[in-house]
């Protein structure tokens, strides 16, 4: 599998994507002329100030919003066709576990809907619980778990059905720094183990730099891409890579990009 990573194979392609919401107080230009290619096996972070359209872009990729202009394709299909082909797993900002289902039951939800066999369901639940380090918590109900554990369970739910794209909207936004570091490490490990293409929204510069192979800097009103940074960091990243000059240089460039976007606006 690793060999194929070196051949750039586009999975998500956006060309001049525009998205305008019609609201009560007039149109809101959430995305303007967004052009971006995400290749198989990429880990792409979207970073930018609040309201710059990160969530909207991720939802457009997922087929939950429809662009008003431009072209967007996922696996060569329209986002809606890709959604119907169950091409991706989506992790929302809130864990959103069903309180009336156990953790195992929650992870089974997509499997039941997609018609996996009973035995396969159980095997998959075991496997993804191990992946997110929640072995033995399958029989617990969500309220018996901490916020970080719930978020991990929701990631397990998105991993359970083997979609090769994982879309995550600020999955760790509500967690403290230390838990976040642990989950970031875990996410990298998981990404290496599963070979997925990941789209990841965050507000944190270190998080974006630490996780990504590609960092997309966005700016608001109208939401657009101001910089795309290809990371030069190796794929294998211990937490203390964050103290290396290389890391700090990339973080600096991201910060500059954010600041530039801010200047345009004022």
């Amino acid at each position, binding site marked *: 599998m690793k060999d194929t990573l070196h051949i750039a194979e586009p999975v998500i392609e956006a060309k001049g994507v525009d998205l305008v919401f019609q609201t009560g107080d007039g149109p809101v230009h959430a995305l303007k002329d967004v052009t971006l290619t995400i290749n198989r096996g990429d880990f792409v972070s979207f970073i930018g100030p609040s309201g710059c359209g990160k969530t909207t872009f991720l939802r457009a990729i997922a087929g939950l919003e429809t662009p008003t202009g431009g072209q967007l394709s996922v696996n060569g299909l329209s986002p809606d066709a890709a*959604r119907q082909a169950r091409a991706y797993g*989506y992790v929302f900002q809130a864990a959103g576990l*069903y309180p009336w289902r156990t953790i195992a039951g929650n992870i089974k939800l997509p499997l039941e809907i*997609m018609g996996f066999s009973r035995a396969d369901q159980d095997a998959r639940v075991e496997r993804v619980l191990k992946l997110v380090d929640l072995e033995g918590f399958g029989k617990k*109900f969500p309220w018996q778990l901490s916020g970080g554990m719930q978020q991990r369970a929701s990631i397990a739910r998105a991993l359970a059905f083997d979609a090769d794209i994982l879309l995550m909207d600020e999955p760790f936004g509500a967690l403290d720094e230390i838990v976040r570091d642990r989950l970031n490490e875990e996410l990298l490990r998981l990404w290496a183990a599963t070979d997925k293409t990941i789209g990841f929204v965050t507000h944190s510069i270190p998080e974006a730099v630490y996780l990504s192979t590609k960092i997309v800097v966005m700016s608001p009103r109208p939401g657009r891409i101001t910089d795309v940074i290809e990371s030069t960091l190796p794929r294998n990243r211990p937490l203390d890579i964050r103290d290396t000059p290389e890391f700090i240089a990339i973080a600096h460039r991201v910060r500059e990009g954010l600041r530039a976007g801010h200047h345009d606006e004022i």
Partner: protein
Amino acid sequence: MRSILPILTVLCAILVIWYGAAMKLNAAWTYDQAARAGTDPTFVDVINDTMAQERPVLPPPHQVAKGLWEGLTAQAITSKRSLVWHGWVTLSATLLGFAVGAGLGTALAIGIVHNRAMDLSVMPWAIASQTVPILAIAPMVIVVLASLGITGIVPKAIISAYLSFFPVLVGMVKGLRSPDGMQLDLLRTYNASTAATLWKLRLPSSMPYLFASLKVAIAASLVGTIVGELPAGATAGLGARLLSGSYYGQTVQIWSALFAAAGLAAALVVIVTLVERLVLRRMGVAR
């Protein structure tokens, strides 16, 4: 123990007021009788008489208790004079009406949530149906169905369902719509069908709403059944007891039937509450 004290206090207050009212209201008849007989009763005589009249305006609590007890135990429960038998007649129609009403309310709610045309058309009619006094509708239903040869439990159950579908409809529409945008979007990312969304998200989310409305609905079912037993001709059921009691001025019988109905309603609501607790605990969401 702490919760018992306020309840007992209220109960005592009710009993005191009730006895007071019974003495005052029944005294008129005592004085009438005395005047006719030319006697001059003492205050104690009057009090004693108001407590033990044959047909008091307001029977005191102990007479009602005695009437209720005798109604329940003094004869075989299959006897037409047994409150147990009348209670069962009422209960069976209530349960049938409740089942039909709850099913209808839930089915309409599912339709309303999934179909825009139903959303716009059903609710106004459902509300209108509840603004028509049930006392006006009940005799028509009974008479029309009787002319078609349908008598017994079914007409009463229909009236009962007519009253009980509404709270279930209102509660279930709200319950089925309670999942938020994120929960619905999650299922969209799985490309879940409408049916899967209903079974796996909307129905489980609506359980608390369902049970809240079932408690209202079961009480409404009982009221509907009793109203259905009032039109002339009915000889069985608590409603018929109420009516025949009022024909013959048997106030003790009226009040006994009334309390039997109240007890039945309370028992039914308690049962719904217990089922609710069981279901929510099984779902893991009971606190």
